[in-house]
């Protein structure tokens, strides 16, 4: 009896850590039911912050989001907002196997209900397992191991503060190479993510939601390392009749707008928000 109680206490402690350090971005999202335009992207969309809120655009980007997660968010937004337009990422790496494996599907399941037709979950049991059991029994969610490990490590060791100034970064080539290697591993694009894009487009068409695909700005060093490699999300969107706006090279000579090789900093985020407003007539 007491032993079981101990196990429950361990589990509660894990829940608290995981909720605070992992699930937080997915909890308490201040979406207004009158919101009509949403930015859906992975970490490339984060620097935009809520700089376009005045134009009625809510930035719903979360680091590591894949098209699986974006699909779920769209299902959720259709139900709870007046969404009529989405600005979706079509970056070169978004159809990679890397993104298929590294995503937020264990968290974005929060946006799915039993009656929804989810792309990944076959039945209500799978939904219950992913949405509730894995969340409230984190001991079975192997992804949480790293979070808990990081939590304990931070108790003993101060985490390194990463420089957010790419302009003065010393090892640009090395960092760009490592990042490109991670995101462009292999040559095949993910067929599952491709199918998911198709589902997204079909769903949006059905709901009269306009899709605008964009490619986020990248630094010069990173573009050099990527060397034209592209898993083809933009081409696939084009096949489905969606135009992609390519912003990858707009700040190619402005390293001061970048926090690192492939992410803008606050200044870059503001500039890019203005650019989006102008180019997309938002």
């Amino acid at each position, binding site marked *: 009896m*007491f*032993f079981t109680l*101990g*196990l429950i206490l*361990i589990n509660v402690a894990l829940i608290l850590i995981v909720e605070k350090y992992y699930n937080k971005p997915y909890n308490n999202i201040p979406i207004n039911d009158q919101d009509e335009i949403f930015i859906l992207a992975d970490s490339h969309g984060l620097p935009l912050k809520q700089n376009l809120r005045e134009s009625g655009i809510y930035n719903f980007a979360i680091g590591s989001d894949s098209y699986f997660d974006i699909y779920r968010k769209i299902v959720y937004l259709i139900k709870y907002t007046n969404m009529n337009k989405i600005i979706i990422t079509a970056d070169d790496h978004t159809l990679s196997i890397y993104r298929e494996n590294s995503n937020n599907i264990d968290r974005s399941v929060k946006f799915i209900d039993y009656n929804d037709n989810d792309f990944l979950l076959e039945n209500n049991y799978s939904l219950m*397992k992913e949405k509730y*059991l*894995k969340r409230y*029994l984190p*001991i*079975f969610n*192997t*992804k949480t*191991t*790293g979070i*808990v*490990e990081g939590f304990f490590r931070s108790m003993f060791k101060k985490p390194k503060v990463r420089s957010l100034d790419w302009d003065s970064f010393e090892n640009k080539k090395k960092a760009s190479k490592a990042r490109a290697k991670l995101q462009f591993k292999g040559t095949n694009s993910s067929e599952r993510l491709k199918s998911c894009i198709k589902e997204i487009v079909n769903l949006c068409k059905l709901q009269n939601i306009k899709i605008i695909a964009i490619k986020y700005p990248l630094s010069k060093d990173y573009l050099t390392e990527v060397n034209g490699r592209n898993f083809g999300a933009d081409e696939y969107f084009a096949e489905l009749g969606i135009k992609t706006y390519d912003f990858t090279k707009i700040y190619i000579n402005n390293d001061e707008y970048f926090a690192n090789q492939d992410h803008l900093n606050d200044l870059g985020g503001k500039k890019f928000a203005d650019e989006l407003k102008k180019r997309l007539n938002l």
Partner: protein
Amino acid sequence: MFFNSIDFAIFLPIVFFLYWFVFSKSIKWQNILIVVASYVFYGWWDWRFLSLILFSTIIDYVVGIKLKKEEDHTKRLILLWISIGVNIGFLGFFKYYNFFIDNFTTAFSFFGKDIAANSLNIILPVGISFYTFQTLSYSIDVYRKKLEPTHDFIAFSAFVSFFPQLVAGPIERATHLLPQFYKKRYFKYHNAVLGLRQILWGLFKKIVIADNCAKFSNMIFNNSSEYPGSALILGAIFFAFQIYGDFSGYSDIAIGTSRLFGFDLMKNFAYPYFSRDIAEFWRRWHISLSTWFRDYLYIPLGGSKGSTARKVRNTFIIFIVSGFWHGANWTFIAWGALNAIYFLPLLLMNRNRKNIGTVAENSLFPSVREFISIMITFSLTTFAWIFFRATSLNHALGYIKGIFTKSVIEIPDLPKKALITLILILLFVMIEWFGRNKEFAIANMKIYKYRIPKWMFYYSIIIIIYIWGNNSDNIEFIYFQF
């Protein structure tokens, strides 16, 4: 359904609750529950394969009853061959069809004749080699009049499909397991605690040892041409512990789960890596399969009796068949043949039963002689595992060639986690060593006398499983593919 999945963590308590709290008054209903639960457990992979189990069950049940009634020797033999034919037929089709087709095609083309034979896209039903052997033991024992056939179809179905050991053994004998389905089972607290302890240890072996070793053995074996000899040796050692942790871990979970339901399954592993010679290794490794082959193949062939040529023939047959049982690939046959070569000198010199008892039974550490014997046996076994793990004979030979180069003295450049895994292996070997005369390593430790240290020990294992468990997706049990 995997033992190390959230599905099983939900499934097991539900079945346990129904078994002891809802159906405890009726053996029949408990058996029905076991059959239903087992079919759900197996159908979780692919419900279509349930038809195979059901068909095997019906055939062997009917054959058993007919064998009892039939006195005519020829007719009895025909009945036995029906059972063997159906079971081996399924196994042959699902597991070996493509192997034979591919090899026949290659052999014919070698002699200049091209034949058009297409291999099929066949999915191997999980654990087919295990349950077919289990049901075969029933038909053979009834044929030999060692066992009375059952008239209780539910009990027989439960025996064939008993979920804890359905997909990866231990391969039970009907004489041992079937009678347990006729008797009333009583819940015994001590037995349940022992079962849970064995499950915990099994999970540790699988998730911490096997899955972490798998990461590095896969990395090294899949890119063997890029690694120096020293890393290749480490790759083979990682695989030796991967397969041991994986399979004996599965057996521990299976035996522990059965205990929760009041069943006793046979021991499948007895610290094989502490064996002092190969004969002892084979008495301690996958015991349920080794004894199956001994009783139903080796002894009928004449065993170790008769001329030297006969002994050699029988040894090769049993080891090669055992290798082939593991998979339709020449690598498994080579693995079996290599083990036969290891075993034969001991048999011919009549030294195969020299090391019977527990090593260093009354002392804390082994003697120098014992230690050297253990290391030699482990090295021979690990060397043979290279064939077992390799994807083809060429791969295995290339791997071995890579070991015997100057690079064997290089310090291997492996990730830091590989070192941590080696430390975990060391910790695991130490615990196994100190528990080597117990049924499983943590079955009966002194700390169990005191509540706090006992709990601390359990919590530590749970936390180690959580933290050090390989946090990639669930890695399948190796033996599921057999």
